[in-house]
């Protein structure tokens, strides 16, 4: 599909919400059992931006993604994708999970995995056609691992494995991409290649939200979300990544809220 044709489709898909931000989160609170993970998170991610999400372990970064994708119920708050409810907007979203969560012994080849990206277009009863196979091959070409397409996923290096899942997201031709730690376990060259790909996607008009652990590359993002259960700060890296904010994000001290939760838990559970 040509870029302008794609823009038309995107505008049509957007319909009355064409100008709406790709992700709009309002007062989102999510908990696992009685342990809150996200507290009253509000975010508007503008289109065509590369947004980095940073925060310590357990800060709720992956939970934020799961909530955006409608995979976990929220206690309160709303998520809208391109101005529409999650169920309608999710067709325009691609999600790249952490490679640690992947079953590497599953009997699939690289090409099989990338072709899975066409599922939203095919539906439950559809079967991939020549056009879908072409799209999968193009996606593999773009991430530079087309030559490995017939290999089993186990027979790839860490960086190549990461690219397989990026290729699957590309193959979805989504307008919003959520990448959960794409730089985990990859070498410096792959990290550069992935950043180049991210930049190219952004210049193609895509919006990307990237969970990231490497604090040395924060300036590569257009916007940063500092997250630790709440949004500590959200804005351009130069303004947001201050020493004070980083300390508030990564500081180990329990907040009064945490202590209140702990006290409540003690009372409600035997």
């Amino acid at each position, binding site marked *: 599909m040509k870029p302008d044709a794609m823009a038309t489709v995107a505008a049509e898909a957007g319909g009355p919400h064409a100008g709406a931000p790709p992700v709009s989160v309002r007062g989102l609170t999510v908990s696992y059992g009685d342990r809150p993970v996200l507290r009253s998170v509000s975010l508007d991610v503008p289109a065509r931006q590369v947004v980095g999400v940073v925060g310590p372990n357990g800060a709720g970064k992956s939970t934020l993604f799961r909530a955006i994708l409608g995979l976990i119920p929220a206690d309160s708050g709303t998520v809208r994708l391109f101005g529409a409810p999650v169920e309608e907007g999710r067709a325009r979203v691609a999600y790249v999970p952490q490679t640690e969560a992947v079953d590497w012994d*599953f009997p*699939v080849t690289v090409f099989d995995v990338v072709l*899975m990206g066409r599922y939203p277009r095919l539906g439950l009863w559809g079967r991939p056609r020549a056009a879908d196979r072409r799209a999968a091959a193009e996606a593999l070409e773009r991430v530079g691992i087309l030559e490995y397409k017939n290999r089993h996923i186990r027979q790839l290096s860490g960086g190549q494995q990461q690219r397989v899942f990026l290729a699957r997201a590309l193959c979805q031709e989504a307008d919003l991409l959520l990448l959960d730690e794409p730089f985990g376990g990859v070498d410096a060259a792959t990290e550069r290649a992935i950043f180049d790909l991210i930049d190219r996607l952004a210049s193609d008009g895509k919006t990307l939200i990237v969970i990231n652990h490497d604090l040395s590359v924060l300036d590569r993002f257009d916007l940063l979300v500092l997250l630790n259960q709440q949004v500590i700060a959200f804005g351009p890296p130069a303004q947001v990544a201050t020493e004070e904010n980083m300390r508030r994000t990564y500081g180990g001290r329990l907040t009064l809220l945490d202590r209140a939760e702990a006290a409540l838990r003690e009372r409600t559970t035997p």
Partner: protein
Amino acid sequence: MIDVAAQVMWDWSQWAAPLSERWWQETLCSVLVGVACGVLGCFVVLRRMALIGDALSHAVLPGVVIAFMLTGSTGIAGLFLGALIAGITTALLIRFVSQHSRTKEDSAIGIVFTAFFALGVILISSMGRGTHFDLKCFLFGDPLAVGRQDLIMMSVVAPIVILTIVALYHPLRLASFDPTVAAAMGMSVAKLHYLLMGLLSATVVAGLKTTGVVLVVAMVITPASAAYQLANRLWSMLLLSAAFGAVAAAVGMSVAFVTNSPTGPAMVLVATLIFALTMIFSPRHGLAMQAVRRWRAARHFHSEDVLKSVYNLSEQPGALCAVEDVARRTGLSVGRVGRLAAELKGRQLLDETEGQLRLTEAGRRQAIEMVRSHRLWETYLADRARIEADEIHAAAERLEHAHELADEIAQTLGHPSHDPHGEVIPPPESRGPNP
């Protein structure tokens, strides 16, 4: 032994013989069960649901018994309905227990299905002696209990299973491989899960008299696990698993038929045999290939050790040294060194005359590579990995075989000239005589 043989002979004449119409009917029915179980088993294995498969099959027993009590017949439709209700109740109870107590899901499964199974056994025992309900046939399968009705039932269920899997191949593969992404794409992952469970229950119930409830789970997971050892694609795993299931079921049924023993155990043992063979002979993961790879690696490392020892033992280039000395230095047996030497001679790295070894020029170059690699690794371990001095030699003995990395280590370390023991590290292009 004679008694057993006589018994078999007696059964043979008493009951139908192989290739009779009766035998065909039962074998065809069991092949259908084997194929359906094999195909569904692939998803059970890949989704790690072996325990829940076992639970479903055991839990249908009380449903079957209650249906029999109510209708007073072993008509397949009534039993099917009873089993279906029992299966759904089990699934719901498992969810209830794991959500409303501290119990983890696997324990919840164990608690619920054993309770159901126990209830089924007690209900059967409570029935009068005169009733036509053969417990053993439902527990372990009986070749003679399989009738035309069962074959008809299986001829409906097996094609439904296969067609569903073929039609939903892509969604099922995605949901099994990556359930989170499947859900993110808007797929109803839970519905597919219950569809698989439903198909599995239907297969178990339709094949009830063919396999029995106790061991049917083996027909689900064992052929699929055997196929998993061999296949790199899901469709090839499905085909192999179906074939293994069919073979195990047909052979098991025939054995049970001829010996008039329960069918379930016979089928399971054939399936297990197939699994054992794949475990040993799988080209990629098999134990046999692993042993061959280990043996080849050991031979490769030992011959490199021999080259290095001959080099270290020779005072000057081209000097001879005894096989026994090399054996002592490498810790290998004299016979082993002799065989390795003969092989190295074939590769023109070594000359051997009457138990005396001498390096050729090519052999000398390779030995120097090994020495260089060993000393570089020692330096690296001491400088970078901070390994204790008395451990670095042993570690380097192993690592030196990764000599293709030598240049990279040298570069990382800034081309050191001596190792931690003060020995000279030969330069990479060292092709001249030993200094």
